[in-house]
């Protein structure tokens, strides 16, 4: 296949990928969008086979490896529970990162196969592009592995910080830039490998100081990195599909990180530099005076909600941990039978990744037109009889609006306290991720339900 023809097909793939993302603007068009994406991918792969034109024994191996990888991927995709989606996405990002590193290594070892010149005299631009692709890919890989371990609970979600951390990161960053410069002068294999190794280290160091609840930002950021790595490789291979995709994915991840940071009223650098509330958590729990708390049980909750005319449900990460989404849906069904109007309020940073709560509710067959974003529903709390907070904490804390001293001051929160009564399902009075006490617990209109989110919801269903 001629180079011009294959380039045209790669352009078509790129356009199909744009349409795949465009489809996600509404759930109705989204499934069609996904098919566009699959078509784009199929075209890219077939065109590559045709333009390489090598159908020898190597081709058979490529097909075998494609099927092996594909089967593993399909197996994971069908078996993974929806609650594990954040770690799955983190894991997948690490694979893209590592694939980018491998392609860059291969291009460095055999540049003539990619039309980049000969070993030892690779074109300057290609050398810069492939070393950048390799470095970003390596950072994506090791960073995503750390994110995966934290989300999976294999590694503690607590931020790991040490003295001089930022200085070391800066030093390593500078040394990568320096090594790329030397690579261009000497074309030395050792320097190339050093760039890859240092980048792996940077990925680890970048993610360990970031705590569990900041994971939505981290995952989006790594999403963005995987795109830039792909774009770097795309420039090396002079491949339009890869360049377009890299740019799309890169900007998509960047926008998601921005939305997540805005949801917490924090700057991107504040999140990345890490360790929010990790230090003052202890002092806070000690100084906490014993304030009166109203304690209820499932029957009280059932009574309140049955007699309400409208109920708003506020889910958070705790719902995902307890796998309470199906029980919640049963509760809502029972309430609807009693003529209660029920809607769901989702805070942008609820859960461990963008849109985490929406997927879990969709899994439990909650229609998406009953689920609302913060801005859409926040005014409705004032007219609502009962707010049922299940597994959320910091995102409901009224302190964010009233106390300029508070670390979460200015963060957009759900105005849960404005509803006539608040039911707060929580295992204990312990503070949330931000390490601050939630003022909502001690309000007159709050009834605390101390239990596991799933058990409590099931009990409420029974007494309804």
């Amino acid at each position: 296949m001629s180079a011009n023809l294959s380039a045209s097909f790669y352009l078509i793939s790129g356009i199909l990928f744009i349409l795949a993302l465009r489809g996600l603007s509404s759930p109705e068009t989204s499934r069609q969008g996904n098919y566009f994406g699959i078509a784009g991918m199929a075209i890219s792969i077939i065109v590559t086979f045709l333009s390489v034109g090598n159908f020898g024994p190597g081709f058979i191996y490529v097909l075998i490896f494609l099927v092996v990888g594909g089967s593993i991927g399909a197996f994971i995709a069908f078996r993974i529970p929806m609650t594990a989606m954040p770690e799955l996405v983190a894991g997948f990002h690490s694979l893209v990162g590592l694939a980018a590193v491998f392609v860059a290594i291969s291009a460095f070892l055999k540049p003539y196969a990619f039309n980049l010149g000969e070993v030892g005299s690779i074109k300057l631009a290609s050398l810069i592009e492939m070393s950048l692709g390799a470095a970003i890919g390596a950072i994506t890989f090791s960073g995503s592995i750390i994110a995966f371990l934290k989300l999976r609970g294999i590694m503690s979600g607590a931020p790991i910080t040490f003295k001089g951390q930022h200085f070391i990161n800066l030093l390593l960053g500078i040394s990568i830039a320096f090594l790329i410069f030397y690579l261009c002068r000497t074309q030395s294999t050792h320097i190339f490998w050093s760039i890859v190794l240092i980048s792996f280290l940077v990925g680890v160091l970048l993610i360990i100081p970031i705590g569990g609840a900041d994971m939505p930002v981290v995952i989006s950021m790594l999403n963005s990195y995987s795109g830039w790595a792909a774009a770097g490789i795309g420039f090396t291979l002079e491949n339009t599909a890869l360049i377009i995709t890299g740019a799309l994915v890169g900007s998509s991840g960047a926008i998601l990180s921005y939305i997540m940071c805005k949801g917490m009223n924090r700057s991107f650098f504040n999140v990345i530099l890490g360790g929010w509330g990790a230090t003052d958590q202890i002092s806070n729990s000690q100084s906490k005076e014993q304030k009166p708390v109203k304690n209820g049980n499932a029957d009280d909750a059932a009574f309140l909600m049955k007699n309400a005319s409208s109920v708003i449900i506020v889910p958070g990460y705790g719902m995902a941990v307890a796998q309470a989404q199906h029980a919640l849906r049963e509760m809502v069904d029972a309430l609807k039978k009693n003529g209660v109007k029920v809607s769901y309020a989702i805070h942008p940073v609820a859960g461990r990744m963008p849109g985490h709560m929406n997927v879990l509710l969709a899994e439990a067959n909650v229609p998406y037109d009953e689920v609302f974003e913060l801005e859409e529903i926040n005014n409705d709390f004032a007219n609502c009889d009962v707010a049922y907070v299940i597994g959320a904490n910091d995102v409901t804390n009224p302190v964010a609006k009233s106390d300029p001293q508070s670390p979460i001051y200015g963060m957009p929160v759900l105005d849960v306290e404005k509803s006539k009564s608040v039911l707060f399902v929580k295992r204990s009075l312990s503070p949330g991720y931000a390490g601050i006490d939630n003022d909502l617990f001690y309000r007159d209109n709050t009834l605390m339900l101390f239990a596991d989110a799933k058990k409590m919801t099931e009990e409420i269903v029974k007494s309804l």
Partner: protein
Amino acid sequence: MEIDPFIFRLSIFILSIFVGYYVVWSVTPSLHTPLMSVTNAISSVIIVGAIIAALAGASDNIFETSNIFGFLAIILAAVNIFGGFLVTQRMLQMYKKKKK
């Protein structure tokens, strides 16, 4: 003076960033998780590079170091392509409207 082809690729890149910017802002927040899984799947188009790497060189010795890296990258990217698109499909199937 002739324009370096790099400039054309750079133009495509920059314009695609703008396209991505506007397209992604129009994605509804409830679909942000499928957005992440589908972007993950499409960024595996890096498999194009992996295939070239795997098939590079003479056909009598297909297991040189650079080819092996290509084969490994093919496995990784294939896991992502199939896993990413299928899990996205599985998620999107779950988004339903209220029954009328």
